[in-house]
């Protein structure tokens, strides 16, 4: 039945699958918990999802360009430790640009190895995940870092501040989402990323500088990580040296849930936002229902596989794989 609908409606319905699932989840949870749909709760979910959300925006662009970025987790550790540590040493007005620059350098290394040298992105970013984690540990000497004067610094506005009654992390996340959405859908760069991810060979044959485009996607990803690190450092006013451990997976899960294909060439920033929020609301809803914290991971498992399965099934026009 569902499949027949999927077939009949074609891509339109398949594209909205995540939206339908999202609404179903929201209704279910709101029936089970009064607090779930309260303004306070929704705000807090948005705020908590901002860090993963901002990172997911960058990774979405990398994935649309036909690659993966598994290094964002340890890159987040790197950036957060750096900005927090430098905050007390050289002040926030210098710490932020230095950190952003350093993080962009890491992104540039990814971009060079994958875009210019054309190495496999899965392995390269896996290697970078390890190498950057090592860098963080070397830099911090294995210690966690803190900002001493936690109340007297304007650095606090990024994670703890608010504008017009809306927490800054939410504004940053949704603002960036809008900016990247506009770039990806209405600007030449977005078109080129889609082309390179969809068919790298045909892109070259159309005169698109594939190497440069891929390189840029990794710079964007690194920039997003840097911004996420500012929010995180500002909120916590300190950082563990492995704070980003495992984030790459949560981020990738959100991107996949948003319907962006790992094969490249298709995907959408706005649906990634939906994927991020869905994961955040699942987490929040399960906790409100009194489930152990990690139950959300189990649910995420099922949700990811079902979501991707339906997507794949809609494309091939049958539910089960034809292989024997």
């Amino acid at each position, binding site marked *: 039945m569902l499949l027949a609908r999927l077939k009949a409606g074609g891509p339109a319905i398949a594209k909205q699958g995540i939206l339908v699932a999202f609404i179903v989840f929201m209704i279910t949870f709101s029936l089970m918990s009064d607090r779930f749909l309260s303004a306070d709760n929704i705000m807090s979910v948005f705020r908590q999802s901002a860090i993963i959300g901002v990172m997911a925006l960058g990774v979405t662009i990398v994935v649309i360009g036909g690659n993966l970025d598994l290094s964002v987790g340890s890159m987040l550790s790197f950036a957060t430790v750096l900005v927090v540590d430098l905050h007390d040493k050289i002040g926030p007005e210098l710490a932020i640009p230095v950190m952003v620059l350093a993080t962009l350098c890491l992104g540039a290394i990814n971009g060079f190895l994958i875009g210019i*040298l054309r190495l496999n992105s*899965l*392995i390269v970013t896996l290697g970078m995940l390890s190498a950057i984690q090592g860098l963080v540990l070397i830099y911090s000497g294995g210690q966690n870092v803190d900002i001493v004067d936690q109340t007297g610094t304007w650095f606090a506005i990024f994670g703890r501040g608010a504008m017009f009654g809306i927490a800054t992390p939410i504004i940053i996340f949704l603002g960036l989402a809008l900016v990247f959405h506009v770039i990806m859908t209405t600007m030449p760069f977005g078109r080129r990323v889609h082309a390179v991810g969809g068919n790298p060979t045909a892109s070259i044959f159309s005169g698109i500088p594939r190497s440069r485009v891929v390189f840029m996607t990794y710079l964007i990803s690194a920039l997003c990580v840097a911004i996420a690190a500012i929010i995180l450092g500002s909120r916590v006013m300190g950082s563990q040296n492995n704070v980003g451990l495992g984030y790459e997976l949560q981020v990738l899960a959100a991107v996949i849930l948003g319907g962006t294909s790992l094969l490249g060439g298709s995907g959408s920033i706005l649906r990634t936002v939906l994927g991020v929020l869905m994961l955040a609301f699942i987490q929040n809803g399960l906790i409100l229902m009194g489930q152990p914290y990690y139950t959300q991971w189990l649910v995420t498992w099922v949700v990811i596989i079902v979501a991707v399965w339906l997507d794949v*099934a809609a494309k091939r026009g049958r539910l*089960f794989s034809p292989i024997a």
Partner: protein
Amino acid sequence: MAYFYQNPLLRWLMRNPIWGFVLIIFIFFSLSADHFFSERNLMNIVVQTSTIGLIALGMTLVMINGNIDLSVGATLALAAAFAVDVQSWAAFSTWGNWQILPAVCLALLVGILMGAINGFIVWKTGVDAFIVTLGAMLGIRGLVFVYTGEQSFYAMNFAYSDFSFMTIGPFPVLAVIFGIAVLAVHWLLSRTVHGRNTYAVGGNREAAVNAGIRVGPHMMINFMLIGFLAALSGVLLSTQMGAATPNLGRDYELWVITAVVLGGTKLTGGKGDIIGTLGGVLAIGILRNGMNLMQVPAFYVYVILGSILIAVLFLDKRFNRTADGGLRL
């Protein structure tokens, strides 16, 4: 130069460059780290390596198939938790040391089951193994936390933790188990029909389907094998620690994939072997051990490993660039 190509040992090294690397770091650490070249330390390396090594054997199969399994670390933790917990179940309280047996069996079965779930989903849904096992990596880890209540389990039966100190002749029992597993998987891959089909499925899937190889069940068997090996690794790790922690095996998928790729197995499938994987595993083991002996902080190992992984990829690309036929793409 002619000699270079005729010498069978050198030719073999050309095909398995990782063993050249193993040889170099082995000599390097023997000369520069005081306690490196001792029987005791070498056995140590093998024991330390066996945890990642066992999983790497399974990963080689899965990757030659053209798949990947990211959930092995979580499966390892789940199996370890079962192995330690089940022996203290009331039902087995009168079994004495035999209570270990059902615990270990159950733990291994759980590993096989997790592999079967992954394999079945890959087979039936046609979703890429990367996504399936990425989901499972989160999900199974969640299962571990929920099952353990986020607590560590400690083995009450000392026979369990004593097991890891046992030796068979001069060899630690863990090294012996790893050795047997290496031989068994090597035999499976190079001598049996299933092993040869593993190459066929990864090398040219359509051809394999047309030749009547049942690709779905075939891949599922390999996922079950890696599940079993991850579980075995988890059991052995928990005997070494006398405990199982819910965070056990985090990052292991990274180490394992690094080892397998170092050993020359291709992510795209169809290529690789156990000899290479063993080299990759030993390279990581020797590096960690040797640097530890030289009192290099463990942090540097991460950086070095990451760099080596990328360097191997780069060299492989340099020397095997035929795919694009010289076209500047």
